[in-house]
């Protein structure tokens, strides 16, 4: 049985061996092609590195090659007969927090790398916290560079214990630990012969089998209307279909639904993917629904169930990550984009900023600049239909767009 897609994020800096780990996954799963290998061997020789430097595979842009750092999220792909993988490869330095937030927003799983010699560092806390904040439910802590600590079980256990006592403060239900050497390949794809004291799966084996389908919200029916399809052709003159991506719950033909914000009730008369009719729709399918009644419904509205409705609110309690190089100016009227809806919004209050290395609240300096994470209160010009982010990532998230530059300046998650 094919397992479908797994989207995961790797955060870390060059020193952690993150790029080497990704290079190793691609190389050992035979995803690297001959011409790519030739190209990096040539580049490694020019730089005087011994052998093929697998980290060169992942540091794509010229600025990165010149400076030797990763400055943006890069996406990598590989597949095994069991699963297809999308890696969001994010830089780990604190000045790239926004990039990690971006990569984490679509990830099901996070890989946290710890250098076995150094143990937990500030950035271990930071990466773990961001994964938690962005609602990632599965984490793999790879204790890397085991070759440099003589494959020592005691050292590994010490790091595991320290991490466990730290992570008890985070809401991440599934945390797994694996001792590896990305450089030498131990426990990445192939089982290590030098750590027989470890009897868990290799990293790839775990990635192939981790169950993430259950993370989707199948309880709360949410269908944000994305686009209205009206063919205007002779054959389908009266057709009126509502296109969108299911954000939660399972919709079935015949279901009674309520359109929000109008509150009008109707029934689902058909569901289709392309020209193929289906009986039901669930996340993250893109479908077209037709309804029993000709009601007023357009982009930005939502179909839900009568007895299970999202919060309709103009006041949001949110955690935001500031993405823009320009600091937040108090009183700016942003455009808030939430599902397929847009609303004018102002940040009414900064409650606190977070020191994301220590998780301490900062209450005496409330200036918001790039990479800052803060708890804020937002007021929107019209009610929006939200769920708690921890219950539904699609209806609990938003971005803020600057009305002047049109740039995306902040990303937010809503707590209800």
């Amino acid at each position, binding site marked *: 049985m094919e397992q479908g897609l797994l989207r995961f994020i790797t955060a870390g800096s060059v020193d952690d061996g993150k790029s080497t780990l990704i290079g190793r996954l691609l190389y050992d799963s035979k995803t690297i092609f001959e011409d790519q290998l030739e190209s990096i061997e040539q580049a490694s020789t020019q730089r005087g590195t011994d052998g093929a430097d697998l980290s060169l595979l992942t540091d794509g842009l010229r600025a990165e090659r010149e400076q030797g750092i990763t400055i943006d999220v890069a996406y990598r792909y590989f597949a095994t007969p069991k699963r297809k993988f999308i890696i969001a490869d994010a830089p780990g330095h604190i000045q790239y927090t926004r990039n990690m*937030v971006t990569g984490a927003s679509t990830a099901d799983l996070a890989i946290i790398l710890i250098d076995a010699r150094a143990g937990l560092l500030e950035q271990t806390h930071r990466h773990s916290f961001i994964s938690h904040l962005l609602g990632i439910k599965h984490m793999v802590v790879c204790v890397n560079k085991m070759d440099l600590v003589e494959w020592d079980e005691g050292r590994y256990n010490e790091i595991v214990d320290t991490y466990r006592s730290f992570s008890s403060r985070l809401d991440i239900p599934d945390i797994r630990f694996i001792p590896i050497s990305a450089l030498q390949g131990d426990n990445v794809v192939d089982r290590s012969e030098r750590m027989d004291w470890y009897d868990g799966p290799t990293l790839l084996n775990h990635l192939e089998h981790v169950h993430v389908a259950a993370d989707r919200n199948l309880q709360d029916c949410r269908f944000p209307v994305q686009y209205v399809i009206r063919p205007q052709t002779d054959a389908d003159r009266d057709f009126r279909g509502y296109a969108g991506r299911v954000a939660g719950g399972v919709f079935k033909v015949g279901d009674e639904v309520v359109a929000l914000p109008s509150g009008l009730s109707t029934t689902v008369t058909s569901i289709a993917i392309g020209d193929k009719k289906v009986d039901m729709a669930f996340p993250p399918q893109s479908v077209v629904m037709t309804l029993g009644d000709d009601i007023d419904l357009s982009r930005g509205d939502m179909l839900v169930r009568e007895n299970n409705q999202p919060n309709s609110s103009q006041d949001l309690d949110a955690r935001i990550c500031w993405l823009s190089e320009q600091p937040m100016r108090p009183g700016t009227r942003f455009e808030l984009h939430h599902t397929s809806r847009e609303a004018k919004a102002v940040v009414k209050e900064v409650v606190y900023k977070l020191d994301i290395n220590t998780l301490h609240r900062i209450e005496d300096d409330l200036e918001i600049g790039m990479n800052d994470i803060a708890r804020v209160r937002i007021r929107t010009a019209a009610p929006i239909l939200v769920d708690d982010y921890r219950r539904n990532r699609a209806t609990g998230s938003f971005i803020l767009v600057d009305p002047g530059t049109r740039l995306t300046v902040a990303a937010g998650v809503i707590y209800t």
Partner: protein
Amino acid sequence: MSDYNMSHLDELEAEGIYVMREVAAQFERPAILFSGGKDSICVTHLARKAFAPARIPMPLVHIDTGHNFPETMQFRDDLVAELGVQLIVGSVQELIDRGEVTEEKGFNASRNRIQTPTLINTIEQHQFDACCGGARRDEEKARAKERFFSHRDDFSQWDPKNQRPELWDLYNGKHQPGEHFRVFPLNNWTELDIWNYILRENIAIPSLYFAHEREVVRRDGQILAHSEYLNLRPDEKVEKLQVRFRTLGDLTITGAVESDADTLEKIIGEVAAARKTERGGRMDDKRSQSAMEDRKKEGYF
């Protein structure tokens, strides 16, 4: 009852359909960049599924180098007729004739580079604010950081160091007048995904993708189709080989591979076992380590 599983192709399709609908909803004058290659054919197929039973609410735009495989042109015209969509052709030859671009000379001359001004010219002329293309992140390292909605300034330039953050599936298509977006619904697909999807959906593709006998020229480790547009070096000779194409670009630069894969199943077997990336056959990428990044900054696809 099923446990609501989706195969990875189902998930990629759902994402692609979602992106196409965002384009139609957010932009005034969107278009699909159609090359006749398998990737733009897949984008068009996603658009068909995204808007069914309505017609695709945007035109297909073909940037015509004049050096085309005749099979591609026939395929394009048949598809346009079947879909009932508008076709807009941006002609490289017209720009050459008007003296707006200069053609390269010599044995490796190609019109690949002057496709870019032709594309920009077409975008400006028709005031397109979003152009959907079939590029994929796995094709080339400069593309690994590409967004779904990729912003271009009013000179059509891409600034890789200053891209808009893209979170969840909230795509921000807001822009100033004169700016536009390139949109890549297949970003998360690999070459193998494309082929498996073509097989699953039974999508028609040009015959050039299947193994056939053709007159070719070997040059610098590549196999190029012989045509009136290819300048032969003195020591080069034309030979007949059983080949197929892994990508379809301009006739003068698209490398063929020796193959007997004459069905989709055989092609998939071949792609799965391949040890060279598909762009490895393209002369345009070989010019330097950053060849793709440089062309993208200028406004290439």
